């Protein structure tokens, strides 16, 4: 049984709320456990697919939720289940005649035919579409849950009461459905992911973390994380209680979270560096994809999100490329140096990292960013929009309230009869698939990353 807590953060689950989570702490006492180094970048898509395949984002050709489909300027596509061209654990088990139940694991929409059952992930547009395999399972899911919640709706709001309630409800529902499915059908692998922690962290981090610059002692949400993790622990205890005593348990997350200090306006910066030319000034805040760009005078542009994606406009590659092929590495190196020299709004070194995909991955497929940028080592988000009219730094997220960014360490616990126990500080997301394959008696896959931990 793999219990996935999206954005599960070691500082919260292993430290701050350990006493509030007796079931998880008791499980940890009989586990091999520790922080889990995530993928680079530490983003939900592709991290869960990397965890369950033992492949890097480069090998999957998936660098985030939306990827360039070609070298045009507007070719973007969501990374759906069809983008994952390598077997994940349930595929290997199915080929070996073993049954799986897969519930809400990111990277599973549209649902695939597997040996067992699948309820697809939060990238499902709605439950009006086919969101389960087999299709008739959808009716059962709707009946059992009273209306299945794919995600928190309308997250972009200041109605914090509603968002908080939805997060609590979604988590309760997800665990209840897991318990139902786990007790009504056969399985060798049960893998489910709850998105609740991620949504809670993004919506409420500054209310609950005294280390966040915007934290105000005594605010009305100050105990929300504690209350939520107490609830998670109750749900976890209920699920564990329903399982046979000899069930091997994994608790894992795809990445952690940390305070977000602000946003850095990547494209505004490129404009000021004379690397990005706008054909006309935007009338107001404008996503880069909708801005009018003079490509004939542009050397680089970027996308926003929890990390920055920087693309170079290369002759012979992009339609109106401006960087001669022979200058590509020089330009990229110059950008690395400029980005890593950035200072924050108070002139202090920001600690930005600009990473080359081929340095991160043994193989780079699809259309990767030319640079993957962690502003402030992920303590700042990347703002892709232009026309913000407020300089390079922004502290009001115009895409919605959000005060947490991802962190590179998630969590991992593995508990089972005869398995090793104790804390480890060298665990990596790529170790999960080979370890679970080994426990199932399956061989490692050619080219798979990671180690067998137990």
């Amino acid at each position, binding site marked *: 049984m793999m219990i996935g807590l999206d954005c599960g953060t070691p500082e919260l689950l292993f430290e701050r709320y350990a006493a509030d989570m007796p079931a998880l702490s008791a499980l940890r006492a009989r586990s091999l456990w520790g922080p889990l180094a995530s993928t680079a970048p530490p983003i*939900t898509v592709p991290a869960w697919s990397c965890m369950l395949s033992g492949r890097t984002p480069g090998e999957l*050709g998936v660098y*985030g*939720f*939306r990827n*360039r*489909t*070609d070298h045009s300027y507007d*070719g973007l*596509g*969501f*990374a*759906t*289940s*069809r*983008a*994952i*061209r390598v*077997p994940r654990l349930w*595929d*290997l088990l199915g*080929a070996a005649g073993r049954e799986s139940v897969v519930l809400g694991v990111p990277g599973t929409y*549209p649902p*695939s*035919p*597997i040996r067992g059952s699948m309820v697809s992930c939060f*990238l499902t*547009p*709605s439950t009006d*579409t086919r969101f389960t395999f087999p299709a008739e399972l959808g009716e059962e899911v709707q009946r059992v849950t009273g209306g299945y919640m794919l*995600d928190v*709706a*309308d*997250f972009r709001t200041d109605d914090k009461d509603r968002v908080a309630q939805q997060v609590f409800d979604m988590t309760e529902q997800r665990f209840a459905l897991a318990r139902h499915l786990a007790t009504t059908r056969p399985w060798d692998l049960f893998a489910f992911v709850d998105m609740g922690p991620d949504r809670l962290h*993004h919506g409420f981090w500054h209310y609950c973390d005294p280390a966040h610059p915007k934290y105000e002692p005594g605010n009305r949400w100050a105990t929300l994380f504690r209350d939520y993790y107490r609830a998670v622990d109750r749900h976890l205890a209920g699920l564990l209680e329903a399982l046979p005593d000899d069930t091997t348990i994994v608790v894992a997350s795809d990445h952690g979270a940390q305070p977000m200090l602000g946003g850095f306006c990547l494209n505004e910066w490129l404009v000021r560096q004379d690397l990005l030319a706008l054909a006309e000034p935007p009338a107001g805040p404008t996503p880069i994809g909708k801005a009018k760009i003079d490509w004939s005078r542009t050397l680089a542009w970027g996308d*926003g*999100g*929890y990390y920055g994606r920087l693309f*170079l406009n*290369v002759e*012979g*590659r992009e339609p109106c490329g401006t960087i001669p*092929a022979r*200058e*590509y*590495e020089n330009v990229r190196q110059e950008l690395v140096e400029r980005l890593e020299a950035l200072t924050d709004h108070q002139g202090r070194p920001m600690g930005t990292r600009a990473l*080359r*995909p*081929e340095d991160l991955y043994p193989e*780079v*497929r*699809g*259309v*990767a960013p*030319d640079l993957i940028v962690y502003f402030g080592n992920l303590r700042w988000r*990347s*703002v892709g929009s232009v026309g913000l009219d407020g300089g390079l730094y922004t502290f009001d997220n115009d*895409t*919605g309230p*959000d005060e947490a960014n991802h962190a590179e360490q998630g969590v991992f616990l593995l508990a089972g009869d005869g398995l090793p126990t104790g804390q480890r500080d060298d665990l990596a997301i790529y170790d999960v698939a080979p370890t679970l394959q080994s426990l199932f008696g399956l061989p490692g896959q050619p080219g798979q990353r990671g180690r067998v931990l137990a």
Partner: protein
Amino acid sequence: MTIGPIAGNPVPDPAAEAGDLAAPGLAQDGDPLAAAEDVYSSAEEAEVAARLTALGYLD
């Protein structure tokens, strides 16, 4: 000097990429990186994009 491994790589041929990595049951048709149009209607894609933007994943 060449463009380098990233720039030098053409968009991969999906059929060649699937190759021996694909497992039984995995979808193998279509370009995986252009799958959004196959998977989502334009309204559905807009709905998912709006949700991800609100969450901060897209900007």
